[in-house]
């Protein structure tokens, strides 16, 4: 750890033009199987003023759960921070391995906040209604943003409103095909159903966060959402993709009637519609909800393989391969069986 702190300090002295900079209290933050995340203090003098900044380092691990572009994540932080949404300020991006062995980026730490755990029976306590309203409002604002206007028009993803759904199905089918180590009849039935019953074209192209859910944002003691995190799977696509993911039952904890453990489903959708200026057509949203559970299953299958192969033995991957995959298999089975009256 001290070697990492030393190398980090050397890098930041040059990057920030602060020859006196020191790094203190470097500590790894648990969670985040796709990137190593550390918090630390950077102390230095700028313009004659002594600074003591809380910063976050996100470094590529030796093996990554889902192959994601750190450039994508960094650019999303830049764009939405500039737009005024609650997103940490990005500080630096390095794609080479010279400074810290692997690619990384650094952003400002949003301090004195917590994330709501998906296993918590009531993750936001007395603030759940307020947090829920903010959560779905921010998601609506993300959907409302025009990718080209915020500099993300060239992002990965579908290029056309008619292609968003099948583009994502193909993406996750590839992951399943590459990483599946035991036959998954429910997952494959879901893939076939999604292909047979395509949703209408997207209302518009938007930046899809890709993992917008409980556990991926920071809330302060007053119940104010201060930061939306983990943009590594962001891409261009259908605004309903994020909504379907955000209301997936896996994130609902003990109360499935309240997506994300926050507000009732109907309120969540209404707030999202108001903030985005878009409509959540029930039939289209139903398709994206089934897609969300399929995408989840693909991620958990991938996590299980990473773990079983010994490439990343973080216990979160074993947990994902067991709990999360069994959960999404159950959700998919119940929903798809209902389609045929079983």
């Amino acid at each position, binding site marked *: *750890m001290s070697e990492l702190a030393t190398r980090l300090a050397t890098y930041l002295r040059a990057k920030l033009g602060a020859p006196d900079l020191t790094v203190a209290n*470097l*500590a*790894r*933050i*648990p*969670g985040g199987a796709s990137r190593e995340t550390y918090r630390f203090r950077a102390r230095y003098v700028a313009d004659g003023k002594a600074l003591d900044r809380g910063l976050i380092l996100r470094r590529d691990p030796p093996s990554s759960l889902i192959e994601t572009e750190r450039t994508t994540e960094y650019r999303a932080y830049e764009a939405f921070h500039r737009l005024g949404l609650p997103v940490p300020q990005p500080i630096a991006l390095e794609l080479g391995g010279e400074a810290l062995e692997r690619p990384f980026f650094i952003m400002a730490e949003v301090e004195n906040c917590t994330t709501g755990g998906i*296993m918590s029976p009531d993750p936001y306590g007395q603030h759940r209604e307020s947090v829920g309203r903010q959560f779905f409002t921010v998601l609506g604002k993300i959907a409302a943003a025009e990718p080209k206007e915020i500099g993300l028009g060239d992002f990965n993803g579908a290029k056309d409103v008619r292609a968003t759904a099948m583009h994502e199905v193909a993406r996750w089918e590839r992951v399943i095909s590459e990483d599946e*180590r*035991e*036959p*998954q*009849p*429910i997952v*494959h*039935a879901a893939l*076939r159903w999604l292909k*047979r019953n395509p949703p209408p074209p997207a209302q518009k192209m938007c930046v899809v966060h890709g993992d917008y859910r409980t556990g991926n944002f920071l809330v302060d003691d007053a119940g104010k959402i201060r930061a939306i995190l983990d943009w590594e799977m962001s891409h261009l696509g259908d605004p309903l993709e994020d909504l379907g993911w955000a209301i997936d039952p896996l994130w609902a904890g003990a109360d499935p009637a309240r997506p994300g453990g926050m507000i009732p489903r109907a309120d969540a959708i209404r707030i999202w519609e108001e903030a985005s200026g878009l409509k959540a057509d029930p039939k289209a949203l139903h398709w994206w909800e089934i897609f969300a559970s399929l995408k989840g299953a693909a991620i958990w*299958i991938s996590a*299980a*393989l990473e*773990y*079983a192969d*010994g490439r990343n*033995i*973080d*216990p*979160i991957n*074993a*947990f994902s*391969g*067991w*709990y999360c995959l*069994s*959960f999404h*298999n*159950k959700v*998919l*089975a*119940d929903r*798809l*069986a209902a389609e*045929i*009256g*079983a």
Partner: protein
Amino acid sequence: MKPEVGTVLALTAQKIASGFGEHGAAFAQGTIGLLATVLAVSAKEYERGADIRVSENNEMRALFEVLAETVTDPALRQELRDAGATRDASLRISALNENNYALRRLLTRLQIYAEEHGVNDVQRRIWAVLKAMAQRRLVQLGP
């Protein structure tokens, strides 16, 4: 179920032996909490693993025996009859898995056949089995 319990126990031992204190107390605490959860789930899976697989295998065989007579494709019908007549000769997880995977693959082929031929009653019966399989495999946390 991947990863298998044996793999999880071996990698958990490796993780503990390698230590994780160098990353600071919060990281160590978070990791220990997750390891504890994974070990608790391992205990449950150790207890129910063989039962789940035997039950699933028998349910799929019973389904194949019944539905074989509704299938017009002679090759698939014979495969269903043959699979329906198999039994689990060993209760080792690896042996049960081998049979389970073969039965699941055949179940998917039968389901595709039913979807392509629009045989809704067959589809409903398959989904009833799949729902039962998903329910049985659902990992419950807590005591």
